[in-house]
């Protein structure tokens, strides 16, 4: 079925991103917005806006009934959930289908399987992918018992989590009970599900992921991304392709991602994430994210594909029109996430009013943002203000373009991590490439003592 109108159940830059593809494809857009977002940039870009509830996400963007009611009120063909919020919620997918709407994402069963990170591990094992040791834990005592077998450090993860949310590294037993309770409440707040599982922590691995697209039968990949520059499991910088991988090793990672998606009969856009030890040329399956990702623009930059358009096409029931040979990678792309947070004050969130927000554009640059001068950055949602994407003929050129772009951003009224991003882009180790996920936090603790 052709999708002629679509409800966007999201906000911020990703709502703007989806709106832009819809406009190009001639799809009518309805934005489901919370009360504080009714005058934000995406609301002005959408053809229509339906207010779905109060500012706290639990009362609006996380409210399945409100989203379904908005879609039915607006009479749309489909729902695009973006990322975060209800993007991987099987309940939204199930109720969309029951209401006769197309859910832009995989099947309900796939969402349930992949959203349950333990079930995803089982699927990965069945598909023959390597895994880090781990299991479900009901309380701090069970986590301690796992630690007795596997040792510290370990990492607590939300079973319903993903995107690095609700993850806690634990170095020893003394903090375990308190950390367990906090991790549970964070999981409950973020996903409405407080189940946790535990994994052995792999020291200084790299986070490398593969973008895949499936139609339920065929699967293609759009290359890999390196997202190792992280703080507290939140990605700050992403690049495509991952630097410094031997060709054969890179091919094995990409093939594993495709094999996993095929094993699941995956339909939709998704990302298979791996923890990679480049020295030993080993990699481990982490999770599959069954949605569009924040960092998809770097893949779009090097492949030239509009991934949102591809996602809409397969959700509408179309077979893949792309063969693997059709996808070629050109050059290198880097994305820097500009967040409303203060690196000099322990990354304290910095919501408030943007008195000024101007970004450079053109010349291999792309900026995905909902920020503009005079707009509010509310305290209710995540701190992402903008994504700057620089595409060059090679990695050096894209880094150089990013440095210039960061220097030319003008963001006033709130504190952002722009200076930190500039520091990363000029760092010798970053420029050399291939650093691990612990690198940034090690640098930060060295800087602040």
């Amino acid at each position, binding site marked *: 079925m052709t999708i002629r109108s679509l409800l966007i159940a999201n906000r911020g830059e990703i709502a703007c991103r989806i709106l832009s593809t819809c406009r190009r494809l001639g799809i009518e857009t309805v934005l489901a917005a919370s009360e504080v977002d009714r005058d934000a940039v995406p609301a002005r870009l959408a053809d229509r806006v339906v207010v779905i509830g109060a500012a706290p996400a639990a009362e609006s963007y996380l409210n399945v009934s409100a989203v379904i009611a908005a879609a039915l009120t607006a009479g749309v063909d489909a729902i695009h959930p973006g990322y975060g919020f209800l993007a991987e919620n099987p309940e939204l997918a199930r109720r969309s289908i029951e209401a006769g709407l197309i859910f832009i994402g995989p099947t309900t069963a796939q969402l349930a399987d992949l959203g349950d990170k333990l079930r995803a591990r089982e699927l990965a094992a069945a598909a023959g992918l390597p895994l880090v040791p781990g299991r479900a834990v009901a309380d701090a005592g069970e986590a301690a018992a796992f630690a007795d077998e596997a040792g510290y450090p370990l990492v607590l993860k939300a079973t319903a989590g993903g995107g690095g949310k609700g993850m806690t590294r634990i170095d020893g037993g003394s903090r375990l009970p308190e950390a367990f309770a906090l991790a549970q409440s964070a999981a409950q707040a973020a996903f409405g599900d407080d189940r946790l599982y535990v994994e052995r922590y792999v020291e200084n691995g790299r986070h490398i992921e593969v973008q895949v697209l499936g139609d339920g039968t065929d699967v293609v990949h759009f290359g890999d991304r390196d997202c190792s520059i992280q703080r507290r499991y939140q990605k700050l910088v992403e690049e495509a392709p991952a630097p410094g991988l031997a060709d054969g090793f890179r091919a094995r990672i990409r093939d594993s991602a495709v094999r996993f998606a095929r094993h699941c009969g995956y339909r939709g856009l998704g990302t298979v994430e791996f923890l990679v030890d480049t020295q030993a040329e080993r990699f481990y399956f982490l999770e599959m994210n069954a949605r569009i990702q924040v960092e998809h623009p770097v893949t779009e930059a090097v492949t030239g594909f509009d991934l949102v358009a591809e996602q809409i096409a397969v959700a509408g029931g179309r077979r893949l029109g792309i063969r693997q040979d059709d996808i070629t990678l050109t050059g290198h792309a880097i994305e820097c996430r500009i967040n409303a*947070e203060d690196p000099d004050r322990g990354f304290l*969130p910095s919501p408030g009013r943007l008195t000024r927000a101007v970004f*450079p554009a053109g010349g291999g640059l792309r900026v995905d943002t909902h920020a503009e001068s005079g707009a509010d950055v509310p305290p209710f949602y*995540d701190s992402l203000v903008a994504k700057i994407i620089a595409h060059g003929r090679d990695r050096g050129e894209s880094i150089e373009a990013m440095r210039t772009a960061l220097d030319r951003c*003008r963001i006033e009224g709130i504190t952002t991590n722009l200076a930190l991003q500039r520091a990363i882009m000029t760092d010798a180790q970053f420029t050399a490439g291939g650093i691990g996920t612990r690198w940034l936090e090690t640098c930060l603790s060295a800087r602040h003592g």
Partner: protein
Amino acid sequence: MTARLTLDDVREILALLDDSPYDEMTLTTDRFSVSFRRSADAQWTQETRTAPRRDSPVTDAFPAASARTDAPDRKVAGAGLSPVYAALPGTFYRAPKPGAEPFVDVGSVVDDDTVVAIIETMKLMNPVSAGCRGEIVEILVGNGAMVAVGEVLMHVRAGTA
């Protein structure tokens, strides 16, 4: 003697253009005239000033939820009371998760680093510490309420513990 246009002067002029919303700038003196122009492939995103306005029709699928009302009345702090302030705007929670025991109640004895509440801001759970040793004598904000930066959340009678 002729005044020379130095590299620093040019940088300053370029910075002026950079900070302005204009695409072109012409500087005219009695000796020379110079124009600076942004090229088509090195443009800026459009800068707009926004008074809240709405171009798309807005429907209220759900009328505004009524404000949460379990916050007790604000009382005037007595002498010897130490306030616990909100360092961030966000949602105030008295317990680590829904249904759990609150971190503290009136009468709880605390140390300066005792966690007395959580403020959720931008999806981060930020613990709030008592800030001094003593006894909680008053909790001014209801669970789940929005708090502003600098708002007084609780009062601690210092030194009673």
